[in-house]
């Protein structure tokens, strides 16, 4: 792992891009490793698509560098290519467009063959590789169909086939699943992950859907306002977010503003369970719904922290249920998830607590 970190496949350093007074990207630096499934995650307008298009060559950054390591496995012939110096059609990266951008006047196999023809490969070689990739994406029977005759999921697979058939070093995917309905999307998440292992290509996927990023990616870069907030694997991102914004974006959470001191966290005039964090001064306590415990309000139960609230709503999802509790003085209700059906009725007064070591304390920087 350390040797991989030493020679990243893509090295992005200090990339910035402005449109007039709008900053699309500001000082973005990150490394993407060989055979990694990397996700750029953020709300719309955070710059993730601009960064992807800069790698593909459809945006020119105002500053910074994007380089690609060649001769991947042998350190001897490893060299670096300045991607920004190459026109889009000469870059060894392929992009799967959000809208798929399939050529409507060509058949499925002509769409897939197009990139191989541009490489000047022999006809027999092209035919073989197109046939192979059609099997990979399970579209053998659609070879001579036109894009307009296909369903959304089939088009998505054609777009994917057209990109991977080129065997690029990096496959860029712009919101690959957003045009699909929920059930197809879940299948394709699994499928993409399987494909990435099978073809051994580095995937860089842009998404605004945190569940999608969490379930597929090895590492995620969370972006906000053209900047990178945090780069980490999904578990770290969830358990150790560096800011309330990241915590809020990744998964559900309750965020309580208060004061952190050496000996604990105080909010609403109460001491709340929190492990020592090193943070001193204005702070935010972030707690995940699955860590919140609710108990019927029993004054004798002193172990349960001292916040209490009223059950506002309960939602039963089958395997789990979520209880929404309003706590006087908190702007947003506290969410609690538990296994099985909800244990408290709407309107019941409950104590709200959590294990101190599960609370995340972050400095409250505006």
């Amino acid at each position: 792992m350390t040797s991989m970190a030493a020679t990243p496949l893509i090295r992005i350093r200090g990339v910035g891009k402005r449109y007039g007074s709008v900053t699309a990207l500001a000082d973005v630096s990150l490394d993407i490793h060989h055979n990694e499934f990397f996700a750029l995650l953020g709300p719309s307008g955070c710059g993730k698509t601009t960064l992807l298009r800069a790698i593909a060559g459809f945006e020119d950054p105002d500053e910074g560098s994007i380089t690609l390591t060649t001769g991947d496995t042998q350190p001897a012939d490893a060299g670096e290519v300045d991607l920004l110096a190459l026109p889009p059609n000469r870059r060894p990266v392929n992009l799967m467009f959000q809208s798929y951008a399939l050529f409507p006047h060509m058949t499925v196999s002509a769409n897939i063959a197009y990139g191989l023809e541009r490489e000047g490969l022999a006809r027999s070689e092209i035919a073989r590789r197109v046939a192979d990739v059609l099997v990979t994406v399970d579209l053998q029977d659609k070879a001579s169909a036109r894009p307009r005759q296909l369903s959304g999921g089939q088009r998505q697979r054609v777009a994917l086939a057209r990109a991977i058939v080129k065997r690029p070093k990096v496959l860029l995917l712009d919101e690959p699943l957003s045009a699909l309905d929920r059930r197809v999307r879940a299948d394709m998440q699994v499928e993409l992950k399987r494909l990435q292992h099978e073809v051994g290509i580095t995937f860089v996927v842009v998404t605004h859907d945190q569940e999608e990023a969490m379930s597929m990616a090895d590492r995620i870069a969370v972006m906000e306002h053209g900047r990178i907030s945090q780069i980490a694997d999904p578990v770290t991102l969830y358990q150790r977010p560096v800011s309330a914004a990241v915590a809020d974006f990744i998964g559900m959470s309750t965020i309580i503003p208060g004061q952190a001191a050496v000996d604990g966290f105080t909010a609403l005039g109460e001491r709340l369970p929190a492990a020592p964090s090193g943070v001193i001064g204005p702070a935010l306590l972030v707690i995940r719904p699955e860590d919140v415990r609710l108990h019927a309000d029993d004054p004798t139960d002193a172990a349960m922290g001292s916040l209490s609230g009223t059950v506002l709503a309960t939602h039963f999802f089958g395997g789990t249920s979520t209880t929404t509790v309003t706590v006087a003085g908190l702007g947003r209700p506290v969410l609690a998830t538990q296994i099985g059906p909800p244990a408290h009725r709407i309107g019941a007064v409950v104590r709200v607590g959590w294990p101190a070591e599960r609370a995340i304390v972050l400095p409250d920087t505006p």
Partner: protein
Amino acid sequence: MTLAHRPGGHSAARRRALLGRATLTWPGLAYITAFMAVPVLLVLGFSFLTRGRFGGVVAPFTLDNFARAVEPVYLRIYAVSLLIAAATTALALLIGYPTAYAISRLPARWRTVALICIVLPFWTSFLIRTYAWILLLNSEGPVNRTLLEIGLIGAPLRLLYTPGAVIVGLLYAYLPLVVLPVYAALDRLDPLLREAAMNLGASRARTFWDITLPLTIPGALIGAIFVFVPSLGNFVVPELLGGGKTVMIGNLIRDQFLEARDWPFGAVLALMMIAVLLGAFAGQAAIARRINGTARA
């Protein structure tokens, strides 16, 4: 399937839906009936009748008008007309497509300015614009004088009253009609398709040949029809710039109605023009369907 429906309720709902649609569409239907269906039916009716002595038509039903339309003297006129209209259309595409392409590559606000400049000549009378070409092309006109001065020619060229002059006049008149639909097609083309082609390794030129050109052919064909059909039927330009020596089908039709007073034969010729137009549109639609990969429009 239909047997399963309760006939009463179903047809009542259908009637109401049809009635609602009719209420909304009657202005359009009335317009088409009054200004298209009735005139075309009149022309169709006239074409089977006999010419009246002082114009108009009289009773005996006949097919002679159609027989006359294929006599060699007229076939020659059709051939000349088709040649001139085809040459005009080809030149209009050769000039109009690159013009539209250049406009579509301009920054957004300059595009509007350029398009206004393209349609601006339409604000002047067609006759005046055609007369202007007489001044430009005559033996003492600026074209000849310039050529003489730079020594390219020794004596003034005979430019006016030639088929070439007719083509130039038609081309000038109808060029905007090819620029606008081609521009619209280029504007509608998803820019991501070009990016996709480049991403797959195509150069800019390759992307144009493989993506932009094929996908804008339906628009270019619409432009071609807009130029070809009125060029074929035009009678002012052949008369003014062709000096009456170049007779086109438009002149022939005009003469049947206004001079020869042979309305039935004029009607036959007019029907032929309508047939050409319908054929052209059907061809365009078929090609557009083929390119877009839709089974039916």
